[in-house]
């Protein structure tokens, strides 16, 4: 038996097992590090960069950094909050996020994390990309305007559902989510709202049809509790305002 190993996170000791990332160890210890592309059911992806922490003085993504004994990890500092806030602002100006009109508003993890890091305005000039809405599927609709390219749906559909419905194409600011069919339409795929891919989106991109605005303002998921308490929308059951199927 190896003896218990630990690192410190904002001064607090956190124990971990071999192979765990800083993010996973922190979660197990009940400490929240903001994140969007990380989902405990999937391998770390490391693309959103919201979970940056300072590890022994170097800024690194906590989801992609292995925990090691004796590490000094900082998370809730002014510097990191400012960087995280900047990254969230980038996400908001990259797409078209009209929160007041969005069905996921209040139960959107993107919005909730933005509140958490203290983002008050998008700050940067909007790119206003021309993106479309795809309502061709009988049970789901995709509003590409809100996609932050976390690739959770890509991973879920490929690795869990075995359907490979989604992909990201293009480079740089032109990177965008696509549907893997010649027509590019969701209706032409075998996607089903019971798929894992329908439960993981942290934004209002993938929506279930024939329902909406079920919780009044004030009682939506993140109205009741902030994201560090309520957790990821993908982990909260539908009956409590999340996306996970009951």
């Amino acid at each position, binding site marked *: 038996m190896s003896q218990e190993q630990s690192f410190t996170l904002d001064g607090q000791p956190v124990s971990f097992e071999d192979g765990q990332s800083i993010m996973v160890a922190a979660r197990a210890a009940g400490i929240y590090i903001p994140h969007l592309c990380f989902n405990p059911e999937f391998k770390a992806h490391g693309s959103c960069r919201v979970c940056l922490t300072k590890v022994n003085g170097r800024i690194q993504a906590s989801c992609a950094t292995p925990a090691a004994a004796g590490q000094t990890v900082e998370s809730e500092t002014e510097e990191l909050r400012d960087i995280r806030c900047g990254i969230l602002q980038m996400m908001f100006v990259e797409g078209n996020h009209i929160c007041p009109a969005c069905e996921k508003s209040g139960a959107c993890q993107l919005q909730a994390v933005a509140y958490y890091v203290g983002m008050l305005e998008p700050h940067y000039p909007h790119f206003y990309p021309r993106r479309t809405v795809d309502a061709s599927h009988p049970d789901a609709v995709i509003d590409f305007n809100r996609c932050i390219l976390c690739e959770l749906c890509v991973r879920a559909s490929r690795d869990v559902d075995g359907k490979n419905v989604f992909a990201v194409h293009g*480079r740089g*600011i*032109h990177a965008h989510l696509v549907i893997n069919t010649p027509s590019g339409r969701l209706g032409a795929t075998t996607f089903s709202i019971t798929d894992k891919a329908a439960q993981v989106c942290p934004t209002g991109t993938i929506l279930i049809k024939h329902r909406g605005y079920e919780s009044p303002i004030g009682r939506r998921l993140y109205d009741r509790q902030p994201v560090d308490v309520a957790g990821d929308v993908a982990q909260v059951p539908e009956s409590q305002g999340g996306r996970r199927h009951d």
Partner: protein
Amino acid sequence: MAEPSPLAQTIDEIVRSHHGLSTRLLQILREVQDKLSWLSPEAMDRVAEDLGISPDKVRRVAEFYSFLYTQPHGSYDILFSDNITDRMLGNRELLRYLCDRLGVGIGETRADGRVTVGVTSCTGMCDQGPAALVNGYALTRLDKPRLDQIAERVERLAPLPEWPREFFEVVSNIRRADILLGRHFADGAALRAVLERGGRAIVDELIESGLRGQGGAGFKLALKWMSCLDAPGDVKYVVCNADEGEPGTFKDRVLMQEYADLVFEGMTLCGRVLGARQGFVYLRGEYRYMLDALKATLQRRRQVGLLGAAILGDPTFNFDIDIHLGAGAYVCGEESALIESLEGKHGTPRIRPPFPTTHGYLNKPTVVNNVETFAITAKIAAEGGAWYASRGTAESKGTKLLSVSGDCARPGIYEYPFGVAVRQVLEDCGARDAQGVQMAGPAGRTIAPSHYGRQISFEDLATGGSFMVFAKHRDILDGMRNFAHFFAHESCGFCTPCRVGTSLMRDLVDKVHTGRGTRADLEEMRRLGRIMKAGSHCGLGQTAPNSVLYSLDQFPEAWERRLRSTAFEPAFDLDAALGEARRLSGRDDPEAHWLDAHDDDLVRLAKLLPARDASTVPDDDRNLLGAMP
């Protein structure tokens, strides 16, 4: 069964020549496109079918690389190299000239499908520009008479092999040679040494030599090889990074063209030390012109027993080398993205750790080194570590190849012992009135004359070798703008700070460069740069803001003289926004324009807003207007 279509037959043949291996996907797509000029949906589906992979995988790759086209493309594909050094040599005027001659817009394909003319990132011909690529083959020293001849050949559909050889001549311009370029090397000397003395003795020599990676990061060579040597597993790989994408560097091109034997010998040596049997050269697509010659060199080495089975007659020494071509993606120079690309995928950098030395190509232990690094290892094996360590400085042993270009009398390759002062290089290349130097490329730093006394070394100014000179009459900001566009184009798009940040930075630099910026924008660049450096997933995003950040410190006047006196200006360009209205109304008179930076802005504003008098438009409203869609 129906007879396969000609398209299917062409593709089947190409896939067969690659043994139906999906790791060859990128190579296959390149060859298919060579034949068909673009990758149609039918072509991509056929490739997928032949390889037994899903069509989405093929599309993902085809959509990633700049040199692969998923839209109809001209039979002649002409891409002007658009590095700042090409611009200094007047490439923009030549680009417009050729477009006019051919009757095609920049970035467009002519209606008859004959030709497409566009721009591409630096093609590594900075010492002999303005440069371009035609169907992937390098063109150098362009001028109007040559473009006339090119246009004429395009019009009469002359095949490339019939074009004059001098259009494609690439010279080496070696201006200063030291121990790497200057001393004779007997082919096989390093391989004989490792057979006689054993791999461990060679590693000891490498340790003694102090050699560090020459690709830029300067990782200790011996540590890398030992880490891979110690990694568990029988199957290991050796990869030579010949992607050379950093604008302004071309020394790896010269090594591959003139010293390929030395590079291949270094790789084979590494193979022996690691017990690897397979090596790859990842050659940037821009250097396609030398592929056949390199293959011939490999073949010759096999024939004389320096490569392949039973090297030097030793039945336990088996190692071969394969060459993969890139397809226009700077990020593929990053070692883990390079490995992804070698595996036939799009080039997104992996999460590190694990590092390639334990989990590299096909997840096997892999050494990735730069071209120059491999060449040096062969020399060290033959001549000893102490010999190499006798040159250079305490932390930077040996010599460094610099690729010198820009405003100087003698651009080309200069080999110096580490520790040489910037001033010495400027003197030797004949740069008498250098206002600044872009060291280590756009990802490096911009330095002013007060720094010319500094040394080129890992202790002081580290560099992969790019050295671009800006003379007094240049505007440094032209360079910064060029670099900002380069990074926005080359970001792979995987992580947020780089994907969005490089485009935000490009727009900010554009704004200041066109005289619409204020002091607030300079502050904004600093904050954005901090976020990109701290937050990006790989070295591309982490270094992308460097040139802006360094030049803000080193050349504040260059930025400040472009600023408006106001504290803030909207990013929104009112005149550009009026463009659509102009197009619709067919107007282009001055009254239909928002003329920038004039005292009479408010008067014009009033004309656009008929209900209001200029004098009653408060200053704040200008910003409000700026925010209007």
